[in-house]
C-alpha cells in the first residue's frame, strides 16, 4: 500500500458534530473524579497541570527571594542566620531553574503542540504522566527538605569541593543531587516525546518548512535538552558517588579536579539559558504576527537562527569560568563565541520589530508583556555582551552585576513572554474571558517592580558587592541601593500576586469566551473552548491547515478531515513522515492508567533510600522499577484488529508501519542520542582527569593478559548478541520460529555481564585515584547497558513464547536490536578508552 498522495485525497462527507463529539469523548476523556485525574494521560490535562504546578513553585521561589531582599534591605540584618540564608538563596535559584522554568516550558509545549500540529495527543501519553509525577515527587523532596531545614546550601551551581562530603557533611547536598536528577527524568521524557511528536505526528501534508514556528522552537529546545541535560545528570551522579562511596572524581588530593564539575555543570548550564529562552521566543513569534495582523518577517531566517543558537549554545559554557585560570587563547575563543551567539538573537529581535512595522500592532494585554520583553531583554542581552568581554568579566563576575544581568535575561527573556503567552492562551485553557483592568495593573506593577529591583543592582555590583553575602556592615555605600531594590522587589511580588489573582478570577468567574477570540491563523484555536481531550474530531489536511482557525473549525468538527471519530473505540492518531508529513500508518495510543504514578513512586522509593544512606538496600528498590517497566511495555496497546483503517473515502492506512519506524523506535533513537551525550561526557571526564588535571598522577597499574582477554570477550559476546537480534528478526519476518535464537541471545548477554564483572573485579579500587574512579564509572555504565540488553532480549523471548512476534509486527525485536548495537558500540568505545588510559599513563 503506497502512502496516499496528499492533494488527491477526497474529503470525508460532513456529519453531525454532536454525535461525533460524543463518540470521541467516550474514548478520550479522563475518568471521573480524583482518580480520573490520577490516571489521566491526556496532554491537555498534563500540560495544564505542569504549568499550574510550575506556578506554585514559582510562588515558593518568589517568597524565598522576598526573604533574601528583606535580609539585604539593611546592612547588618539579623533577620535570617547565615546557614538559613545560604539554604534560601540556593533553593531560590534551584527552584526557579529546575522546578519553575523548565517544567513551565514543558507544560506549555505539551499543551499546545498537538493542537498546533493538528493531532490528538503526544506520541507517548504515559511518558507525559510519568514525567509529571517524577517532577512533582522530586520537587516535593526539595521543598520538604527546605521545611525541615536540611535544604542544599552550596549555591544553585553546587561547586565542588564545597559541595563535597568534607565541607558539606549533611544530607543537604544529597537532596539537591538526587532531587534534581529525579526531576530531570521529566525533562528528558518531555524532550523525547516533544521531538518525536513534532517529527512524526504533524497533520498530513504539513511539511517541516510549513509548520508553525513554535514547533521549530520546541524542536530546537528538545534537541538542546537531549544534549544538555546528560552532562548535568552525569555530574550529579558522579558527585553523589563521591559523597556516598568516596570515589574521588573532584577531590584534588586524590587526582580529582573541582573544575571537572564546573565543566560538566556549565556544559548543561549554558545551553539551559537557551533551553529556557527558545520556547519563550516561540511564543513571541506566534503572538506578535497575529496581534499585528500580518505574517512574520523572515520565517526562514528565524528557523536558521534557531538552529544557529542550538549549535552555538554548546560552544560557550566556558564564559561562566573566565576567572578559573583559563589559558589566554581559550579566553579569546570563548569570548568571541559568546558574542557570536548574539547574532541569531539579533536576527529574531529585528524580525519581530520588522513584523510590527509591516502590520498594525494592537495594544492588547499580551502586547504589553511583549513590550515589557523588548524593554527588559534587550538590556539583559547587552549586559550579556559586556560580560563576554573578559577584562570586564573579571571585575563583574560573582557580583550583584551578574545577579542583575541574569534576572534581566531570565525575567525579560522568559517570564515576560510566558506571561504574554498565558494571557494569550488563557481563553483556550479556561474557555473564559478575562476581567478587564486587573491584568494591566499587574503588568505595570511587575514592570516597574522589576526594573526598580534590578536596574540599580548593576551599579551595586560595580561598587563591589559580591553575590551571596547576607550582611555588609562595613559598606554603608551599598545601603541605599539595596534598600531600593528590596522595596521594588516587594512591588514586583505584589504584581505577580495580582497576576495570579487575575488568572484565578478568569478561570472561575470570567464570561464565556467566543471561539477563536484572536482570529488566529493556527490550528490551536480551531476547536471548542476549553478543548476536549481529543482536540479534533477529524484531522486537518493541507487545505484546512491553511484555512485559518475560523475556516477550519466547523469542517473539522463535522468530521470532514481525516480519521473522523473513534468508531473502533480506540485512541487513533495519524503517524506521518518526517519531512513531507505523508501519512504512514495509524498509531493506537494507550488508555488512562495509574501505571505512570506507580512507576514514579517506585523510583521515588529508590531515591529516598539513597537519600537516607541505605546504599545496600537501595538497589533492591530497583526490582519493582524493572518489573513496572516490563509491565509498561507489556501493556502497550497491541492491535487485536489489525485491519487497515479507512482515513478518508477509499484511503486505507495500516495500523503497523510497513518497514518504517514505529513511534517507539523514534523515541528510543532520541533516548540513545541523549545516552550518547552522557557517554561522551563521561569520556570527556576521563580525558580531563588523565590529561588536564594537575593533581598527583595515578599510581601505575599494569593491565595483564586476563583483563585484556575479559575486555575482548565482553565486546565479542555483545557483537554475537547484536547478530542474534538481527538473525531473530530475519526469522520472524520469514514467519519462522525464533525462540532458540533468543534463548542463545539471552545467554550470550548474561555471559557478557559475567565477563564485565570479572573485569571490574581485577581493576584497582575506584577509591584510590580519580583516574580509577572514572574508569570504574565507565565499567558501571557498560554493565548497566548490558543488564538492560539482557532484559530486552528476555522480553523478546517472552513475546516469542506467547506467539506475539509476527512478520507485520515483530514485537520488541527492532528496539532490542537498536539497544544491543548501541551497547556494543558503547562497550567497544569504553574498552578502547580504558586501553588508551593505560597506554597514556
Amino acid at each position: 500500500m503506497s502512502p496516499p498522495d496528499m492533494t488527491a485525497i477526497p474529503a470525508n462527507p460532513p456529519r453531525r458534530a454532536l454525535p461525533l463529539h460524543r463518540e470521541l469523548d467516550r474514548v478520550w476523556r479522563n475518568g471521573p473524579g480524583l482518580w480520573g485525574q490520577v490516571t489521566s494521560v491526556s496532554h491537555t490535562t498534563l500540560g495544564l497541570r505542569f504549568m499550574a504546578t510550575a506556578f506554585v513553585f514559582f510562588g515558593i521561589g518568589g517568597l524565598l527571594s522576598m526573604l533574601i531582599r528583606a535580609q539585604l534591605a539593611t546592612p547588618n540584618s539579623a533577620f535570617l542566620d547565615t546557614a538559613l540564608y545560604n539554604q534560601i538563596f540556593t533553593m531560590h535559584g534551584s527552584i526557579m531553574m529546575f522546578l519553575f522554568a523548565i517544567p513551565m516550558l514543558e507544560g506549555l509545549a505539551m499543551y499546545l503542540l498537538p493542537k498546533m500540529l493538528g493531532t490528538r495527543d503526544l506520541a507517548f501519553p504515559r511518558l507525559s504522566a510519568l514525567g509529571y509525577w517524577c517532577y512533582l515527587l522530586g520537587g516535593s523532596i526539595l521543598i520538604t527538605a527546605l521545611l525541615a531545614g536540611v535544604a542544599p546550601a552550596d549555591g544553585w551551581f553546587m561547586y565542588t569541593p564545597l559541595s563535597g562530603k568534607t565541607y558539606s557533611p549533611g544530607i543537604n547536598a544529597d537532596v539537591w543531587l538526587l532531587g534534581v536528577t529525579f526531576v530531570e527524568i521529566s525533562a528528558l521524557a518531555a524532550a523525547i516525546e516533544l521531538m518525536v511528536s513534532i517529527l512524526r505526528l504533524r497533520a498530513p501534508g504539513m511539511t517541516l518548512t510549513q509548520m508553525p514556528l513554535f514547533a521549530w522552537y520546541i524542536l530546537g529546545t528538545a534537541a538542546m535538552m537531549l544534549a544538555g541535560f546528560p552532562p548535568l545528570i552525569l555530574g550529579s551522579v558522579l558527585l553523589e558517588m563521591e559523597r556516598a562511596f568516596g570515589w574521588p572524581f573532584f577531590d584534588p588530593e586524590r587526582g580529582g579536579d573541582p573544575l571537572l564539575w564546573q565543566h560538566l555543570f556549565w556544559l548543561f548550564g549554558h545551553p539551559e539559558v537557551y533551553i529556557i529562552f527558545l520556547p519563550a521566543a516561540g511564543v513571541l513569534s506566534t503572538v506578535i504576527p497575529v496581534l499585528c495582523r500580518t505574517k512574520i518577517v523572515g520565517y526562514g531566517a528565524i528557523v536558521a537562527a534557531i538552529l544557529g543558537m542550538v549549535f552555538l549554545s554548546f560552544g560557550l559554557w566556558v564564559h561562566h569560568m573566565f576567572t578559573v585560570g583559563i589559558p589566554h587563547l581559550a579566553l579569546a575563543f570563548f569570548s568571541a563565541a559568546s558574542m557570536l551567539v548574539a547574532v541569531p538573537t539579533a536576527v529574531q529581535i529585528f524580525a519581530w520589530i520588522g513584523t510590527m512595522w509591516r502590520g498594525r500592532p494592537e495594544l492588547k494585554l499580551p502586547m504589553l508583556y511583549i513590550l515589557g520583553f523588548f524593554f527588559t531583554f534587550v538590556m539583559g542581552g547587552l549586559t550579556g555582551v559586556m560580560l563576554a568581554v573578559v577584562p570586564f568579566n573579571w571585575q563583574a563576575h560573582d557580583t550583584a552585576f551578574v545577579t542583575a544581568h541574569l534576572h534581566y535575561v531570565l525575567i525579560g527573556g522568559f517570564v515576560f513572554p510566558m506571561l504574554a503567552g498565558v494571557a494569550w492562551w488563557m481563553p483556550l485553557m479556561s474557555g473564559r474571558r478575562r476581567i478587564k483592568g486587573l491584568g494591566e495593573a499587574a503588568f505595570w506593577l511587575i514592570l516597574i517592580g522589576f526594573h526598580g529591583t534590578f536596574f540599580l543592582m548593576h551599579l551595586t555590583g560595580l561598587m563591589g558587592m559580591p553575590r551571596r553575602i547576607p550582611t555588609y556592615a562595613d559598606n554603608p555605600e551599598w545601603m541605599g541601593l539595596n534598600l531600593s531594590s528590596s522595596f521594588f522587589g516587594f512591588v514586583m511580588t505584589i504584581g505577580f500576586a495580582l497576576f495570579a489573582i487575575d488568572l484565578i478570577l478568569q478561570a472561575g468567574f470570567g464570561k464565556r469566551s467566543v471561539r477563536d477570540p484572536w482570529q488566529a491563523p493556527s490550528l490551536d484555536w480551531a476547536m471548542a473552548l476549553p478543548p476536549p481531550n481529543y482536540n479534533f474530531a477529524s484531522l486537518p489536511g493541507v487545505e484546512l491547515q491553511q484555512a485559518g482557525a475560523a475556516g477550519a473549525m466547523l469542517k473539522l468538527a463535522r468530521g470532514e478531515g481525516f480519521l473522523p471519530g473513534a468508531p473502533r473505540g480506540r485512541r487513533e492518531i495519524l503517524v506521518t513522515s518526517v519531512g513531507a508529513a505523508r501519512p504512514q500508518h495509524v498509531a493506537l495510543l494507550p488508555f488512562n492508567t495509574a501505571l505512570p504514578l506507580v512507576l514514579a513512586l517506585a523510583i521515588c522509593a529508590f531515591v529516598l533510600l539513597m537519600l537516607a544512606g541505605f546504599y545496600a538496600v537501595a538497589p533492591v528498590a530497583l526490582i519493582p522499577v524493572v518489573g513496572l517497566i516490563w509491565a509498561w511495555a507489556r501493556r502497550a496497546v497491541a492491535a487485536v484488529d489489525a485491519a487497515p483503517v479507512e482515513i478518508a473515502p477509499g484511503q486505507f492506512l495500516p495500523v503497523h508501519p510497513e518497514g518504517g519506524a514505529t513511534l517507539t523506535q523514534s523515541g528510543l533513537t532520541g533516548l540513545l542520542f541523549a545516552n550518547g551525550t552522557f557517554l561522551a561526557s563521561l569520556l570527556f571526564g576521563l580525558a580531563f582527569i588523565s590529561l588536564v588535571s594537575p593533581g598527583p598522577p595515578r599510581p601505575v597499574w599494569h593491565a595483564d593478559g586476563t583483563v585484556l582477554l575479559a575486555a575482548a570477550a565482553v565486546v565479542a559476546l555483545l557483537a554475537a548478541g547484536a547478530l542474534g537480534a538481527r538473525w531473530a528478526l530475519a526469522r520472524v519476518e520469514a514467519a519462522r520460529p525464533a525462540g532458540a535464537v533468543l534463548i542463545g541471545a539471552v545467554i550470550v548477554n548474561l555471559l557478557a555481564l559475567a565477563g564485565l564483572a570479572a573485569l571490574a573485579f581485577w581493576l584497582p579500587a575506584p577509591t584510590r585515584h580519580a583516574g580509577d574512579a572514572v574508569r570504574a564509572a565507565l565499567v558501571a555504565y557498560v554493565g548497566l547497558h548490558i543488564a538492560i540488553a539482557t532484559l530486552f532480549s528476555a522480553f523478546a523471548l517472552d513475546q516469542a513464547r506467547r506467539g506475539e512476534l509476527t512478520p507485520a509486527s515483530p514485537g520488541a525485536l527492532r528496539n532490542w536490536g537498536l539497544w544491543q548495537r548501541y551497547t556494543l558500540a558503547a562497550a567497544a568505545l569504553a574498552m578502547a578508552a580504558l586501553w588508551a588510559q593505560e597506554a597514556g599513563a
Partner: protein
Amino acid sequence: MKCAALATVPLVLAGCTGPLSTLTPSGPIAQDIAWLWWALLAGAALLALMVFVLVALGFGRPREVAEGRWVFGMGVWFSLAVLTVTLAGALWVGERILPHGPALEVHAHARQWSWTFTHPGATGPTESEGVLHIPAGQPVDVLITSSDVIHSFWVPQLGGKMDAIPGRQNRLRIEASRPGTYEGLCAEFCGLEHASMRFEVIAHDPAAWPPLPTMEGSRP
C-alpha cells in the same frame, strides 16, 4: 574627546565611590577596565535606545518592509559589525592587563575563611594574615591557591578577580598607582563565613620597599 569625557566622569562617579568600587580605580589595570566599562555602557545605551525607538515606530501605520534588510541587514551584518568592534576592544584591553613580562611575585593562600599572603621582605619571604603588602607603581603578580574549597581573590580598585582553586595555582596581575590601603574580598561563595572573608592590600612607597617584618599583620 578624552578630555571632554574626563570632565563628565567625576559627576557620574559622585554616587559610585567606595573602597570596593570598580568605578574608582587606583591603578592602571583597574583603570583600563573602568574605561572599557564606560565605553561599553555608552555603546549599550545607544543600541538600547535605537531598538526602543524602532519598536515605538512599529506602532505607526502599516508599511512595506524589506525582509532582507531587517533580518540580514540589521540582524546579521549590523550586529556582527558592533560585535567585531566590541571584541577588538576586549582583546586590546585584555592584552594590556594580562600578566606579560616580569613582575614582582607574591602569594595568596585562601582557606575557610581567611587569607595568608607571602611577599618578599627585607629578611626573606614574609607571611602575613589578612594583609597583602605590595610596592606601589609597579606590576605585581599574585599567585593564588586554596587549601580547601574554591575562593576568589578580588581587589576591585587594583584589578580583576581570579579564583583560588585547591590543587591549582592561578596568576593575576594587579597594580596600585599610589601608596595606600585598598580593600579586598573573597568573591566566590565559599560557605558560612563567606561574607567575612575580607582582606587589605597595603601599597608601599617604592622607597620603603621591601617593608620591615614589623608591618601590620606580618610574621617573619
